[in-house]
């Protein structure tokens, strides 16, 4: 009987070591550990043994059973591993196949740049002001120190609705509305559409977008204007950006300047984007003219301020290297999807 048990154990361990799938494993369990297994039969036959033999064989029987059970667990673990590996192998994917895309749209580059611009100045404590596009002559010109028959009215060829109503030719109109309705301190920007009668070509459009900025408070200086625009330019075009003021004339600011940023493509060395200049003109600015303050009910002896204005198309085109403005209004999705 002892030999029989030893032989059984050996056979069971050998068989279990070879098992490689779940079905065979289950067969083994039935064959070696089941109620009708050889081991069960042997142990059942213990009743016929002598009193001396019984504990010895009993002990042996138990140890054989434990050994088979342990071997079974090992085999089971092995089978699970094998099966998992097999499954994984069968589920292998070609990761280079194309992805399943969910359709995603895009903001128009003009809106995108406009909101970048907004985000920058919102962080500087500005608010966003809006004003009408169909405007009176007063807000577009007169209140901006450009009375009737002033030659500066020629610079911007204006679309008129009636003698007194026009399509605003500049977002500076909003300055006046804001000053009329708010007491300093004032810190606003005002982006929006403006209209000038320029025929459509690669760099002109009868409708385009501007963004105006206005700061009015006590003790605002031209140096503050420079600091503000420098901060803005660095945020918009990168940390290394420098700005340059050039004297200019606008009726509603004095002193006035045009502002260049160092070319963000070549860093100022001169390239095709900046036409070899190293600088790109992006905005006009200046200290708000005392006449403008006065007309809008702000005392120029107490308050001072600065204003700046920029063309959003120009920034978009420079930033993305777009050479034809018409693309912006054609709205081909192959174009729009690039931003």
């Amino acid at each position, binding site marked *: 009987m002892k030999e029989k048990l030893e032989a059984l154990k050996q056979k069971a361990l050998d068989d279990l070591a070879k098992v490689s799938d779940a079905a065979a494993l289950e067969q083994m369990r039935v064959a070696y550990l089941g109620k009708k297994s050889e081991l069960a039969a042997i142990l059942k036959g213990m009743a016929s043994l002598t009193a001396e033999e019984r504990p010895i064989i009993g002990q042996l029987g138990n140890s054989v059973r434990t050994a088979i059970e342990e071997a079974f667990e090992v085999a089971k673990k092995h089978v699970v591993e094998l099966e998992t590996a097999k499954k994984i192998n069968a589920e292998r994917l070609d990761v280079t196949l194309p992805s399943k895309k969910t359709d995603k749209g895009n903001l128009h580059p003009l809106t995108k740049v406009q909101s970048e611009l907004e985000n920058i100045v919102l962080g500087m404590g500005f608010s966003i002001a809006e004003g009408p596009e169909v405007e009176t002559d007063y807000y577009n010109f007169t209140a901006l120190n450009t009375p009737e*028959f002033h030659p500066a009215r020629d610079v911007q060829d204006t*679309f008129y609705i009636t003698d007194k109503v026009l399509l605003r030719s500049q977002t500076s109109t909003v300055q006046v509305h804001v000053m009329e309705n708010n007491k300093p301190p004032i810190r606003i920007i005002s982006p929006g559409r403006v209209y000038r009668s320029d025929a459509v070509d690669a760099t002109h459009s*009868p409708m385009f977008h501007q963004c105006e900025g206005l700061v009015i408070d006590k003790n605002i200086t*031209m140096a503050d204007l420079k600091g503000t625009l420098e901060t803005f330019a660095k945020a918009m075009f990168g940390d290394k950006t420098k700005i340059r003021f*050039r004297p200019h004339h606008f009726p509603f600011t004095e002193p006035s300047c045009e502002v260049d940023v160092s070319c963000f493509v070549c860093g100022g060395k001169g390239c095709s984007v900046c036409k070899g200049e190293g600088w790109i003109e992006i905005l006009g600015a200046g200290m708000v003219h005392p006449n403008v303050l006065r007309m809008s009910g702000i005392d120029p002896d107490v308050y001072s301020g600065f204003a700046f204005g920029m063309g959003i198309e120009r920034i978009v085109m420079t930033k993305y290297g777009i050479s034809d403005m018409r693309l912006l209004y054609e709205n081909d999705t192959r174009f729009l999807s690039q931003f």
Partner: protein
Amino acid sequence: MKLSMNWLKDYVDRSFDPKEFSDKMTLTGSKVEGFEKLGEEIKNVVVGKLLSVEPHPDSDHLLICMVDVGKEEPVQIVTGAQNVKPGELVPAALDDSFLPGGVHIKAGKLRGVASNGMLCSLSELGLTLNDFPYADENGIFLLKEDCKPGDDIKDVLCLNDVAVEFEITSNRPDCLSIIGLARETAASFAVPLNLHTPVVNDGLYNGKTINDYISVTVEDSKLCPRYTARVVEDIKIEPSPKWLRARLRACGVRPINNIVDITNYVCLEYGQPMHAFDYNYLKGGKIVVRHAASGEKITTLDGVERNLNENMLVIADAERAVAVAGVMGGENSEIIPETKTIVFESANFNGPSVRITARDLGLRTEASGRYEKGLDRENTLPAVERACELIELLGAGKVVKGIIDVYPEKAPQNVIDFDPVKINEFLGTDVPLESMLDTFRRLEIKCENGKLYPPSYRADLEGMHDIAEEVIRIYGYDKIPSTMFSAQVSISGRTDRQQKIVSLNNLLTQSGFYEVQTYSFISPKYYDNISLAPDAPERDSVVISNPLGEDTSIMRTTALPSVLEVLSLNLRHRNKKCSIYENAKVYIKKPGEELPDERLSTVLAFYGNGDFYNMKGYAEQVLSLFGIEKTQAVSKTDLPYFHPGRCASLEGSDGVSYAVFGELHPTVAKKYDFDLPVYVCICDTEKLLGVVAEEKHYVPLPKFPAIERDLAFVCDESLSSGDIKNAIVKYGGKLLESVEIFDIYRDAKLGENKKSMAYSLMLRSPEKTLDDSDCDKIMYKILSGLERDFGITLRS
């Protein structure tokens, strides 16, 4: 304004590199647009003397010339021109020379005979008869200049100038002149300005002075503050000398004849428009500066008859207008080849008046463009003196003794308080006092006892701000430090409205839509394209009185046609699918008001990306974004641009319509060449922005399970799923948690025009687990209600 650098040297005795000059001038406020080196393209072209001219053995029109070009050996050049003769001086382009337009001349052979260059005509040198009136247009340019073989042709023809183009802003009419720019140059480079006082050696002419010729009466001295005149006798009309023509040409002015050239020259040099009348055609020896009579006419120098009105100022003789003041002279008194006696006019006219006159006549001229900016009254006398000086210099006539100068009142002198501390505070700078005073000296601003007196030609200097600009532009804008203003903390950030628009953009772009931007102005035809009725209120648009063209002539009341144009373009460009939207302002006229209502409207449109129910979903999402969760689609059949059977208005529970959506009407689709269905949604964003969303409150999660029941009915096709659903909700009571349609089934067995609709209902009580009998009671109410309302029963 073009500046001749050679001319500048008369006033500033210094040579400048054009690039450095341009950069510096730009940074001190005179913006340079660019510069042109005249004759730059011409290289290796010299004066040649024709030694011999022989016929070509193998050609009846070519000539073989031996040309002395200042070298030891003459060169042989073959020419086709027939006006060449031995002894003439001609421009000779040598081997390896360049002419305007990039023409490269090399030695070669013409019909077997060596030709080591080319003899040049006027046009081959980039010149015209105006530049050299004596030249033969059809042959080689036979030079009548003081020159010798081998001289560089550019020096001989004064083609060695540099023309610098300035953009002069409207506040600086004084800089529309050589002297003005010389003054700026001197101030910018801190070099002396050499001004010149004209000297005229006038005299009695046959014992007469100017007063024996003419009298000048100014009837409106407000519109003509000063009128200065001189008379010149013995006029000989002829071409101007080379140097004068060269200067005019460099400044972009075409030489005509000595008298016209002198008026143009003085205008360029002094910035003072000049006019010359033929004295013999001034009737009655009178010049009267008066308003035009109503209905008066004049034919101006350009040959056009002009109708004048009483607001216009004219220069008249005893009988008729001879010039429109400050705009253009009349044909009746213009300088002609036979002119013997002239009157020079050098006058000052009121800017706005000239501007209105020029505008009303549709006649903008060089003179009117200057006058309307407001010119210096002090300038008329020096300018007319300069003109007379040039007359004498050119030997063009004899200046008659005396000047008529009607100048009742000088322009008021601006006086500005000088407060250097305030200027520095305003600029945020530390410009030293001495530097400010130096700037004032350079700009001829007188500083006395704390007051500043700008010169007469600087009417733009009115207050402290203007002075601050002068100080800083000469000191250097680059020396302004960068500081940040200190400010009180204020609430900034986007307004609720602005934030909602950002959210709307996010929603739509994340849903696969591309934002587009189209013009706010459209063609009235756009309304036809979307089938609007002829009397549709949407056609009542704000109209632009001076549009670029019909295409952009009215402000849109709807963005639909613009968006459809974009969609159509994408289809034409073979983009297989396209979803777009625009947040568009529309401009709605308000009765009795000057300005229209500008309302935000959002138009969504797509093709190839879904169907009606996709668009319905987007519309619902938009409404939901604005806090309108419970919506109802109500069929709409009366919108001409939508398919009447596939269109709905989306309403909130308040019954207000916030959007309309549907499939584009087939007729409209055809107009845009759509060969596939297009879906559109027009949201009244302005209305949506006004919605006050309800405050959100937490609702406890349900404690008890829900019971699900399904119902299916057979009903007429005409009964809409929404009607059934609404009835189920109505009869279901508050224990009905939700109801959703999950199947629509059509089959011949159901009968003609019948459909089966299946709904899934969720019932739940917050207080207990519902049992079958609770549910059955609810179901009974629903079923009996449906039977009563619609006559429909459960599908068996």
